[in-house]
């Protein structure tokens, strides 16, 4: 049988084994070192978004459960905060090591519950999770040298609410600095991705972490609202949508609670006509299709210099035809499933709006699985600043392409958003990079790269993308009484 070129280069399926992870049929809340049922006895299911298969049943925490978790954290606080920093740090080092040991298991679990490609959970999420704990472990006994005074004090009980796009990584971003600085925590994972946080509870158990220092309450938005409003909480940290962030800011107004928010974005990825086109294409793809575009700092607005537009779009479309969309557990998959039916509906509706408002829609030919939540990589050309898809965060694999002529126009368009989380710059001219970087109102600027993260590197937004920084020395401040 003769092979044509296309079939000669097709991939055979290369699925990662899910035998490495053992998901129990049901999970309780992790409060005071033990799993327990919710007081009201309510449960909800969590699905694999790639297949709609039910993975497990999880307890729905209500106000009474949240109260028990906060009281457990309060009880644990005096001893935990009084531990010598070096001892606290050793617990965090233990956690980091156990996360490394169990990283394959947790990567498969994350991919099952979230729908992201195993290549990403294995090569990005899990390594960053362990690294984050390793990094903050080292701060625990060095806080006096961190620039927050000779004896910076923890705040008390931290109430933390995290999103579904990077479930375990967002947990690490929240819990590692909180524990290193001597706080105790009550964390609520997202409704659609509770499992890795519950597995993390087991990591804490293996590490011998004292009871009550970390408490995990699963549930929907009402659980998060109860946690944020609880009087026993001294610190609220939230990552998620700007709309919910606003609501939280109103809730904590007039209280003693310290607040940090990491919210939405509409990042501009700016490509000048002297940019290395192939590298820029890779950066654009990573910027908007990494994690199916469900990334707050996604480069969802491509600003391309007019003279490069046609060449860049040709190269970009060529590249998109090679993206492999499908089974997230397949090691060759580039783009996995959308996390939930609700999110898929939102992406679908916004894409329709893009068409209705006159932008030109394009997707590569790709076959989507019959079950599960899927959305083909999509780009819109002919987008103007007035279009909804240029203004609203889509949080999906949808790129809006706009053009500019001068650097000033690029800056004006990039900054023309209430958000200010991320931006990208592609040019070979060093002085232009620095001039642009200085004028972009965004917390993270990637030049000739995109979507890079590191525990040492502060991350967070300007304007309505929130306030406070996570990562690095800056990340300590959110959990210290300064």
């Amino acid at each position, binding site marked *: 049988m003769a092979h044509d070129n296309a079939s000669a280069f097709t991939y055979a399926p290369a699925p990662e084994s899910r035998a490495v992870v053992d998901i129990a049929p049901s999970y309780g809340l992790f409060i005071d070192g033990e799993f327990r049922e919710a007081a009201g006895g309510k449960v909800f299911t969590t699905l694999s978004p790639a297949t709609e298969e039910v993975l497990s049943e999880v307890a729905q925490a209500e106000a009474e459960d949240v109260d028990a978790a906060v009281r457990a954290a309060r009880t644990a606080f005096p001893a935990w905060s009084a531990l010598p920093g070096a001892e606290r740090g050793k617990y965090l080092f233990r956690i980091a090591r156990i996360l490394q040991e169990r990283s394959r298991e947790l990567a498969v679990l994350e991919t099952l519950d979230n729908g992201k490609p195993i290549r990403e959970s294995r090569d990005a999420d899990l390594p960053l999770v362990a690294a984050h704990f390793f990094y903050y472990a080292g701060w625990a006994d060095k806080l006096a040298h961190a620039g927050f005074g000779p004896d910076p004090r923890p705040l008390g009980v931290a109430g933390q609410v995290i999103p579904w796009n990077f479930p375990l990584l967002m947990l690490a971003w929240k819990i590692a600095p909180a524990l290193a600085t001597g706080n105790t925590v009550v964390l609520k994972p997202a409704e659609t991705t509770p499992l890795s946080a519950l597995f993390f509870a087991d990591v804490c158990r293996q590490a011998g972490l004292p009871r009550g220092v970390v408490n995990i309450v699963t549930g929907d938005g009402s659980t998060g609202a109860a946690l944020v409003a609880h009087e026993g909480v001294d610190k609220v940290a939230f990552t998620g949508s700007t709309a919910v962030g606003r609501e939280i800011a109103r809730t904590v*107004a*007039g209280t003693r609670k310290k607040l940090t928010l990491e919210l939405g974005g509409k990042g501009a990825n700016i490509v000048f006509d002297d940019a290395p086109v192939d590298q820029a294409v890779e950066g654009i793809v990573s910027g908007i299709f990494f994690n199916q575009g469900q990334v707050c700092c996604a480069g969802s607005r491509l600003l391309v210099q007019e003279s490069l537009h046609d060449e860049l779009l040709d190269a970009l479309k060529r590249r998109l035809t090679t993206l492999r969309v499908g089974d997230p557990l397949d090691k060759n998959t580039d783009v996995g499933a959308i996390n939930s039916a609700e999110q898929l509906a939102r992406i679908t509706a916004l894409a329709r709006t893009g068409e209705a408002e006159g932008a030109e829609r394009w997707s590569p030919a790709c076959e989507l699985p019959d079950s599960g939540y899927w959305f083909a990589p999509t780009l819109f050309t002919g987008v103007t600043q007035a279009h909804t898809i240029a203004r609203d965060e889509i949080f999906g694999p949808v790129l809006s392409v706009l053009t500019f002529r001068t650097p000033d126009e690029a800056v004006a368009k990039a900054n023309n958003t209430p958000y200010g989380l991320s931006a990208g710059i592609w040019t070979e001219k060093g002085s232009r990079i620095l001039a642009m*970087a200085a004028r972009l109102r*965004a917390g993270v*600027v990637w030049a*000739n*790269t995109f979507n890079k993260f590191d525990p040492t590197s502060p991350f967070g937004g300007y304007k309505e993308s929130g306030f406070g920084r996570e990562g690095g020395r*800056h990340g300590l401040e959110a959990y210290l009484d300064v």
Partner: protein
Amino acid sequence: MSERLAVLKTYKLFIGGTFPRSESGRVYQVTDAKGGWLANAPLASRKDARDAVVAARKAFGGWSGATAYLRGQVLYRVAEMLEGRRGQFTAEVAAGSGLSKAKAAAEVDAAIDRWVWYAGWSDKVAQVAGGANPVAGPYFNLSTPEPTGVVAVLAPRESAFLGLVSVLAPAIVTGNTVVLVASESAPLPALSLAEVLATSDVPGGVVNVLSGRAAELGAPLAAHRDVNAIDLSGADAELARELEVAAADNLKRVLRPRPGTSWTADPGPERMLALLETKTVWHPTGSLGASGSAY
């Protein structure tokens, strides 16, 4: 021979580098500690507040883009100008706050010294608050602080001059621009400070000064979509809560009031840091290969 009749000053607002009356035409009586009449101060309106925000936004690009060295010199110039007007400010603070002449003079001196203190911070805060991040990969990675933008400041009700300077100077030294609401009961030092700022090379619009009711002016400022941060030092607990709720609309950075703040204590860098954003820039470093200098 009759005694010479003093020339009284008409106190005015300070918006965009000019001294308008309130667009509303309103004034209110400012009295000394014993209830004696001192002056009619403008009773600024919501429209004045909005005009002040426009002026502050317009000034932001230039002021935040100025070199740190220049901003430091401008703040130092404010101290120089104040030093020459110690007598005037001492008299105003004494009258408005009911302090003895000696205590008022001490407050004015401390305020002048505070300008000098913050002037020196302009080109140091970036090294304290920023730095290189040792990321695990071939990337240059640098975090630098930047001003958050337009800051609304409700000046402390007490300590009408030292408190005022202690909240204003840390906001502008890093490149923010400010809409300042003076102490309601003792606004005269703030309005006179505007005259000093106007002759100290502070560009118009960098500081805008309003006098009037904190609640009336705080509401439009807290809700304003083009204000990036609000310092609630001069709000009581109830007003502070209301304004913090309004500020959530566009996720302003909020500095809550800290009752019992000692304005004479070493302020530390906190007020500057609270009004700064951190920007982190990444760039690949590439590689020159394995061979390198043995040194």
